[in-house]
């Protein structure tokens, strides 16, 4: 005897569909959240620097909060070749809320508080090097920072931080050290940021 096959109507499996929808929603939310931290300039974000690695137990910096003047040195490929770009990131003073690294970075870009080293800066003699726009930017920023620190009298010595790719030439760091050293005991040391 032949039996007729009963055809059950196919129904949409809502449970699985809702699962997939939620998973996709989570995926897009997470992707969107991370894409918001993209840099305003054509180069990498303030956070994507290959800092020197350390295995020793150095003091840890407060995450993402800027307490001191920060000189950030990063690669810039906007003109077809990689050069060093210097940005000056300012902390907040007085009773204003502490700024994050990201906020200070965006402000530096908006205020044009950055400058590029020429490709041949290593070959320049000392006087010419010190007269370059990035060097005068650093010198002026440190001078203003010390004056502001004196005004607000936050206690202790003003601290300059440097955040640079690990392969940044020592010449730039040496310049910052010398500028700070010219203030004698007012800036006895600087902080180099390393990654753990």
């Amino acid at each position: 005897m032949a039996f007729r096959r009963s055809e059950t109507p196919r129904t949409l499996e809502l449970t699985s569909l809702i699962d997939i929808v939620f998973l996709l929603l989570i995926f897009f939310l997470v992707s969107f959240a991370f894409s918001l931290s993209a840099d305003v300039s054509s180069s990498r974000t303030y956070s994507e620097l290959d800092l020197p690695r350390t295995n020793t137990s150095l003091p840890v910096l407060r995450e993402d909060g800027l307490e001191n003047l920060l000189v950030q040195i990063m690669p810039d490929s906007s003109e077809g070749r990689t050069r060093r770009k210097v940005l000056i990131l300012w902390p907040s003073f007085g009773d204003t809320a502490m700024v994050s690294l990201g906020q200070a970075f965006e402000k530096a870009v908006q205020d044009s508080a950055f400058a590029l080293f020429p490709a041949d800066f290593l070959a320049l003699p000392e006087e010419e090097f010190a007269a370059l726009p990035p060097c005068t930017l650093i010198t002026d920023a440190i001078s203003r920072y010390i004056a502001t620190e004196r005004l607000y009298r936050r206690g202790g010595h003003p601290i300059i931080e440097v955040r640079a790719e690990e392969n940044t030439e020592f010449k730039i760091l040496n310049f910052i050290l010398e500028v700070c050293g010219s203030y004698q005991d007012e800036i006895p040391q600087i902080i180099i940021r390393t990654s753990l």
Partner: protein
Amino acid sequence: MIDLIFILLIFFIISSVMIKLTRAEAKLYIPTPKNEPGEAQILIQIIDQDRYLWIDHSAIDTLNQRSYKLRRPLRQEEKVDLLLRRMTINSEELKRRLTGLREVALARPNSGYFILIRCPEEKPYFYATNIIEKLVDTPNLEYGCVAGSIDEIRTNSRIEIEGNVIQIDFD
């Protein structure tokens, strides 16, 4: 089945994004230079990533012994050549000596030590910070970092021994 695939996909995507997040940062203090002559117990001249010139008190004996063998005072170029040949070390030996130095400093808390690190301007600054981070947590170990190359020692330096001190002047 599709659910499982999507769950795994999201897991791997989020994991790969998490890895790229900013790592915690630490702070390394570097003293700013003082424009005055000073004395160092150890001079470390960075030549490249695996070669360093380490000059300490033993350099005096090295120079004196050579001078004694030749029965005459050494010329400047002979002193420089001898130091470069005998006192150039690799990164493993540097690490071992820095560890030993820390142990000595910790064992003698009343003694002070100063290490001068010279780094060529064109080299990456992490060559210097790699040395400094090994010295930071020893209270009686001070350090300073300046720009300088091995060529300056080869061509423009004057090396003299005055008593118990080896004096190196850079023109």
